[in-house]
């Protein structure tokens, strides 16, 4: 892992509201190489915003600032909309949470995939279709030819999620941002989806930014974990070192999930400490 794909320093995202201006992301720095990086944290901690800011697709009112925010050598902050279009999909793409809402309801699934491919590759429709079918097969869809012609409402959640993955992977991007790609799925399907994602990413050497609130899941799946709380990265450590996590929040997150193999009378709940807001953060188990 020589040069990181993404290098972000001191990213801040601000919103204006009735209660004055409000910072949702407060000065975070991280890098992502050709690896699987998990971002965890409770709802509202700024995970999605961080992910979207890399594509410059944050909501209208959001004001982004950073010391730098680079994709390879391109400064994303400076990049024009035209430049961003060549980056989106082609170099960085994003799997959205809920296939039910994230696919265009009136467009056949195949066409949506083909569109994603042809945007960045000048090929004949027929060829694009072949590619799309191959991609559908790659995400373990049993009857690609049939599914190609379905509408989004005609596929199940698990299938939808796989289709999203196929669609986002087909242009062969360098980095994929997956925003809670499995939280709407039940355990069986979730496992399949993760396996596929893992396969594809490791085969191609794509970077993956995996957003979730389930620390246990992320830990088992990713190489590195960033723990976010209230717009800050509290902890940044390799997944393998999770047991060395220093921040009480991280520790509590680990304990908060009920486990089959480890019954407890009462689950541990992170007791949020106001001091965390501006308190110390940890990198690789040491104070940063």
């Amino acid at each position: 892992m020589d040069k990181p794909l993404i290098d972000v320093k001191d990213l801040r995202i601000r919103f204006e509201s009735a209660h004055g201006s409000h910072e949702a992301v407060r000065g975070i720095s991280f890098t992502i190489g050709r690896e699987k990086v998990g971002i965890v944290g409770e709802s509202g901690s700024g995970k999605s915003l961080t992910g979207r800011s890399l594509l410059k697709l944050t909501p209208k009112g959001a004001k982004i600032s950073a010391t730098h925010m680079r994709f390879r050598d391109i400064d994303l902050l400076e990049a024009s909309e035209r430049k961003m279009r060549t980056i989106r999909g082609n170099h960085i793409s994003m799997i959205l949470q809920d296939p039910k809402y994230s696919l265009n309801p009136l467009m056949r699934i195949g066409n949506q995939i083909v569109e994603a491919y042809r945007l960045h590759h000048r090929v004949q429709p027929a060829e694009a279709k072949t590619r799309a079918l191959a991609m559908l097969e790659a995400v373990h869809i049993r009857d690609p030819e049939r599914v190609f012609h379905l509408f989004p409402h005609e596929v199940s959640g698990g299938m939808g999620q796989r289709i999203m993955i196929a669609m986002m992977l087909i242009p062969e991007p360098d980095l994929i941002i997956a925003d809670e790609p499995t939280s709407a799925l039940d355990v069986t399907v979730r496992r399949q989806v993760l396996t596929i994602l893992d396969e594809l990413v490791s085969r191609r050497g794509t970077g993956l930014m995996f957003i979730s609130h389930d620390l246990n899941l992320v830990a088992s799946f990713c190489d590195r974990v960033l723990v976010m709380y209230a717009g800050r990265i509290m902890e940044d450590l390799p997944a393998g070192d999770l047991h060395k996590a220093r921040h009480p929040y991280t520790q509590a997150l680990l304990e908060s999930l009920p486990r089959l193999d480890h019954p407890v009378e009462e689950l541990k709940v992170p007791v949020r400490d106001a001091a965390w807001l501006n308190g110390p953060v940890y990198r690789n188990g040491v104070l940063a």
Partner: protein
Amino acid sequence: MADIVHSVPRSDAGDVVKPNPLVVALKIAGRTLLPVFVTLFGLAALTFFIGRMLPIDPVASILGDNATQEAYEKMSRALGMDKPLWYQFGVYVKGILSLDFGQALTTGKPVVEDIARVFPATIELATLAIIIGTGLGIPAGVVAAMYRGSWIDQAIRFTGLIGYSAPNFWLGLMGLVLFYATFGWIGGPGRIDFIYEFDIEPITGFYLIDTVVQGKWEVFRNVFGHIILPASILGFGALAYISRMTRSFMIEQLGQEYIVTARVKGLSWGRTVWVHAFRNVAVQVVTVVALSYAFLLEGAVLTETVFAWPGFGRYLTNALLVGDMNAVVGCSLLVGIIFVSLNLFCDLLYRVFDPRTR
């Protein structure tokens, strides 16, 4: 104006008896057609009873101000007004069923014939108007939604509102003063210049079509010169409504997740809007357009007056003002049928174009 709204048909799961295909087909037909008939019947009944309630005495308006009482009573009998109400209603319903609305008092011709004459003029005008209104209104609405809050949005909204709230007759007369009297760019009021009036053999009643069919391009130009201004003014009004509704539908769609997906793919904003979002509002927009169209057919009275357009709106209003109930009834039913069938048409569109309802 109204929003036609479509519910996804609710499933009334009843008995689990094995369905007979014939019964099912009948049921589906019943479910779509029965409401149509009920609506039409309701419309007919309402028209009739309201017609009898009107303060206008049709007999007096036929016979004129100085008719004798004897003549008055004779005419009253001739119109069947001395019979009990239910009997009159029966006669009336029977007439409707055989598409016979009787004679129009104002013209002395059968109402059906009158409508056949005035309606094409209005359809021609309204169709051109709706083409103008749609052709400009939809893009305007989409663009306004795309640049929501910007000056473009405000400009579109403002322009639209002028079309919506400026009185038609004023716009019409000013348009005439400007384009007809001052610049001489267009033909004046009326459907055609008198010189050409006898050059058209009525085939469809739509002058634009008739002239094309007959290859009379000179006449076509004259006809077009006459229709373009009133159509633009009506279209302007329709534009306002269509663009507003389009804007609001589009804004709703643009807030959806799949728009983000499209952009993540690297699609340009314009293409996202036009290809992805617009497709999802198309049917709703068609509904709005259809409804505007229906209203144009019914209610362009003032424009028709200013442009001396021998159309349906004026015919209906005039009939109403002189208490010509036969004509009023015929027209009302026609309007009702148009409304109901446009409703039905939009319903079908939903079924056909929205795969979720199939």
